[in-house]
C-alpha cells in the first residue's frame, strides 16, 4: 500500500471523519452566533435601554451626544450593521475551509486506492 500524499489528512474518506467535519462546522457556527447575538443584546437592549439612564451622564467623546441617547438613536444601529458584516465574512470563510477539509480527505482516499 503506497503512503498517502503529504497534503492529505491521516483519515481517508470515511463517514465518521466527514460527520466530524459537519459537527465542527455546526459547533463553530453556534459559537459565532452566540457571541454576535450577545453583542447585539448588549448594544441595543443593554446600552440603548437598560443602562441608558446611567450612560446619559456621559457624552460621546468629542460630540454633544449624551451616551445613552446616542446608543438608542445611532450607536446600536451602527453596531448592528457591523455584526452582520462580521457574520457574513466569518461564516463564508467557515463554509470554504470545511469544504476544503472534505476535498482533501476525499483526494487522500482516492490516492490511497
Amino acid at each position, binding site marked *: 500500500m503506497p503512503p498517502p500524499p503529504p497534503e492529505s489528512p491521516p483519515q481517508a474518506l470515511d463517514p465518521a471523519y466527514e460527520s466530524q467535519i459537519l459537527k465542527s462546522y455546526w459547533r463553530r457556527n453556534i459559537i459565532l452566533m452566540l457571541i454576535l447575538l450577545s453583542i447585539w443584546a448588549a448594544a*441595543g437592549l443593554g446600552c440603548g435601554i*437598560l443602562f441608558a439612564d446611567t450612560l446619559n451622564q456621559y457624552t460621546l467623546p468629542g460630540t454633544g451626544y449624551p451616551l*445613552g441617547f446616542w446608543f438608542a*438613536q445611532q450607536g446600536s444601529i451602527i453596531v*448592528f450593521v457591523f455584526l452582520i458584516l462580521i457574520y457574513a465574512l466569518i461564516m463564508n470563510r467557515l463554509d470554504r475551509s470545511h469544504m476544503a477539509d472534505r476535498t482533501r480527505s476525499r483526494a487522500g482516499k482516492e490516492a490511497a486506492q
Partner: protein
Amino acid sequence: MSVQIWTYLFVGASFSLYLGIAWWSRVRTTQGFYVAGRGVPAAANGMATAADWMSAASFISMAGLVSTMGYAGGVYLMGWTGGFVLLALLLAPYLRKFGHYTVPDFMGDRYESKLVRLVAIICALFVSFTYVAGQMRGVGVVFSRFLEVDVNIGVIIGMVIVFIYATLGGMKGITWTQVAQYWVLITAFLVPAIAISIKLTGTGIPQLGLGSDLQGTAVSLLSRLDGIQQEFGFGPYTEPFIGQWDKVNVFFVALALMVGTAGLPHVIVRFYTVKSPKAARWSGFWALFFISLLYLTAPAISGFARFYMLDSLNGAKEQDLPDWFKSWEQTGLILWFDDGDGTVRYTGNSDNEIFRAGALTGPELAKIARQHQQWIDTDGAKGVNARPLMNEMGLNGPDRDIIVLATPEMAELSNWIIAFMAAGGLAAALSTASGLLLVISSSVAHDLYFKIMNPKATEKQRLLVGRGTIGVAVVIAGLFGIYPPGFVGQVVAFAFGFAAASFFPVIVLGIFWKRVGTIPALCGMVAGLGITAFYVISVVFFDMPQWTLGLTDQGIDPQGFGTVGMFVNLAVTIGLTPLFPAPSEKVQALIDQVREPEGWSPPINIDESAEH
C-alpha cells in the same frame, strides 16, 4: 418653475422608469415569478429589501414620531433595524438553503402538517393586508398633498402602476423596480437632511451635525434642545424613561419590534431570491447597510426640525411666520388658534396654540375656526374657544408627518427638491406595496392553490392564478386605501407583535432544535398568538386595564405585548416537545442538510422533488 410642475416632472419620470424596468424584466416561469429566478446579486437584493422594508411610514412619519418622542423614539429606530441581525443570523441562510418559495412552505414541510401550513398562510395574509392598506393610503396622501388631486384618484393611479409591474415581472420586476425606488427615496431623504444640518450646525453630515454645536455658538444643539424643551413644558429631548415610556415598556416594545421584523413574511421572502446561502448572508448585510442610511439620518432630521420649530414659532407674530407654516396650514397638518395676543405659543402646557386637523373634515374644521375667530373678536363674549376643544380631542401639536414634508422648506431649498420629496414618498409606498402584494399572491397561488387545492396544476395555470391573485389583491388594497377601515390603523401597529408571537419562535426552533415535532409547534403558535391577540383586542377595543406583570406600574403597552407572546410561545413549544414524538427521519435528514456548509450536498431542487 413652480413646485407643482416640478412634481409632475419627477413623478412622471420616476413612474416611466418603473414601467420601463417592468417591461425589461417580464417573466414566464413560476420560479421567475416568485423568486426572480434566484439570480439576484446580493447588493441589489439588499437595496430591494431596503426599499421593500422602508414604507411610506418610515419615509414620512418616522422622523416626526422620533421628533415628538425624543429618546423613546429610539424604540422604532432600534426595533426596525435590530430585527435584521436576528434575520441574518438565525433565519436567512437556513431558509435559503432549504430552498422554498414562501414562509408557509417552510413551516408546512418542516412540521409535516397541512394545518401548520394553513395557519401560516392565514397569518401571512393577515399581516400583508393590514400593511398594504396603509401603503395605498400613503400613495393617495402624497398625491393629494403635492399634486392637489383627490386622494382617491391618487390611490387609483398607484394601483394601476403597481398592477402593471407586479403582474408583468412578478418578483423579478418588483426586485429591479425596488432597486430604482431605493435610490429615489434615499436621495429625496438625504438632500434636505444635509441642507438643514448645514444651516443649523455648519456640518454637512447630519449624523455628526446632531451631536455638534449650534452654528456660531459653543452650545451643543442637543443640550440647547433639552433646555428649550423644558422651557416650553416638554420633557428634555434626550432624557430616557419619561411618562408612559418607562424602562420596561421601552424594552418590551423594542424587543417586540425586533423579533417581529425578523418574522415578517415580505422581508423573509426576499432572501429566497438570491443565488446561494453565501449570497443570502451578504444580502442581509447590504440590506441593513442601505436601511441604516435612512435610519441614521431620520433621528438627525427629528432633532433639527424639533429645535427649528420650537425656536422659530415661539414668540412669532402673524407677519413673521415662515412660509412653510402658511403652506402647510392649508393642509391642516399644522394649525394656529391664537389666544388673542397675536403671538404664537407652542408649548406642552395648556397655553399651547399649535394644533393639527387630524381626522377632522374640512367643514368641521371650518366651523371650529369660525367660532374661534368670533370668540377672539368678541373678547370671549360669543363663539367658542377652540383650544380646550382641540386639547380634548388630543389634537395638540402639529401632525408628525410635517417634520419630513416641510424639512426642505425649513432649510429654504429650491422648488425642485421639494418636488423630489413627492417622488421619494411615492417610491417608498409603492415599493412596500408591491412586495406585500407578491407575498399575498404567493400565499394564495402557491401555498393555497398549488400545494393544497390542486397539486397537479401546470406551470401555466400556476402563473395565471398568481397574476390573477395580484390583480384581485391590488383591487382590495385599493379599496382599503379609498375607504380606510378604522381598525386597520389601529391594528397595523400590532402586526409586529403578532409576527413576534407566532412565526419567529417556531421557525427558529425548527432550524436549531431537530426534536421539535408538529404538535408542540402548533400549540406554541396558538398559545403565543392567542394570548397576544387577547391582550391587544381587550385593551384596545374593550378598555381592559393593562397588565403590569409585576414589572411596571404603567402597565404593558399593547405594542410591546408581542414580547410576552413570544416567550409564551417558546415556553409552550419547548415544554411540550419531550412529550410528543420527534419529526420523521425524512425531516431530520432535511434539517441536517440545512445545517451543512454550502456545497456539501447537491442543492435541494424543489421543482424536481417528488412531493412537489
